[in-house]
């Protein structure tokens, strides 16, 4: 069972709640995914609106744990302030820390990320930093107090899968005891299965489910893929080789020339 910040999770699929065609589809997709953790955010709301309140009651009815993010923050100060606001609204110390450094790729500013993580961890937050596969950044995030890392697979919303297999494998190998959650870039269930086969602890999916033609069916497909990949990893995959090896025994082959 996956353990993050002392919480045991049966499901290794985290689901984002953004960009679904309707609140009803979101709700059904969360159920179909069997996710126990969903990501949420904070946005400006005028007093006349009640969209945020409605959304929050839907999430509460689902009985899942929420992981608020600091999406859209480009500075340490913005991210830290947003984290404090999220802790009050959502009643959790968990924070998916995003400090965005580049607008085209939405890649993390790992320098700001480490600084913000240090401030928040010291203030009692349980930080899930959205980072890259960079080993040095990972090391510094752990030193800053993070007990989970969320490396990207590919840029957010790109659906390109695991872009840097070498780097991600190196990250896994360097930090065998740290829960690693692939966050961002997963496009299809096979990407999620691949992440699990490589030994990652969980995946966070949003756009790939929300923007599928049938999000509920896709959520179920991802749940199966994550379970299959995870079981495959535990079963001990064979080593690839360059030359063929007959799978049917050659001893006793008929001589028919």
């Amino acid at each position: 069972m996956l353990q993050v910040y002392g919480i045991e999770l049966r499901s290794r699929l985290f689901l984002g709640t953004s960009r679904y065609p309707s609140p009803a589809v979101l709700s059904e997709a969360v159920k179909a995914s069997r996710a126990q953790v969903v990501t949420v955010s904070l946005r400006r709301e005028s007093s006349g609106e009640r969209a945020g309140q409605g959304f929050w009651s839907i999430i509460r009815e689902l009985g899942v744990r929420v992981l608020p993010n600091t999406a859209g923050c480009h500075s340490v100060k913005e991210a830290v302030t947003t984290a404090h606001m999220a802790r009050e609204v959502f009643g959790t110390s968990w924070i998916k820390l995003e400090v965005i450094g580049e607008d085209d790729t939405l890649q993390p500013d790992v320098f700001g990320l480490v600084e913000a993580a240090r401030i928040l961890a010291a203030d009692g937050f349980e930080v899930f930093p959205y980072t890259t596969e960079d080993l040095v950044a990972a090391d510094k995030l752990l030193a800053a107090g993070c007990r989970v890392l969320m490396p990207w697979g590919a840029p957010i919303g790109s659906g390109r899968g695991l872009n840097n297999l070498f780097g991600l494998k190196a990250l896994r190998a360097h930090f065998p005891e740290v829960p690693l959650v692939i966050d961002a870039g997963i496009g299809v269930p096979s990407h999620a299965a691949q992440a699990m086969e490589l030994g990652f602890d969980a995946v966070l999916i949003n756009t790939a489910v929300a923007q599928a033609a049938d999000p509920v069916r896709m959520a179920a497909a991802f749940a199966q893929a994550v379970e299959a990949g995870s079981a495959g990893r535990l079963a001990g995959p064979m080593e690839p080789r360059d030359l063929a090896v007959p799978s049917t025994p050659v001893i006793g082959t008929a001589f028919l020339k």
Partner: protein
Amino acid sequence: MKILVNGAWRDTSAVDLAAALHEMGYGEAVVATALNGEFVPAGSRPAARLADGDRIEVLAPMQGG
């Protein structure tokens, strides 16, 4: 006086953040607040005095990835 709420200027006679939220009709809504970029916990809103030109952010739960 004028205050900037979620990026829009408005007139207010409220002297503190709690009164301003009440005046704007947030009622019992689940929101988090910041004054001039600093987080103000719900319990501290009555003590957060407002001045002309103050910037207030009122944030609510929203979908996120």
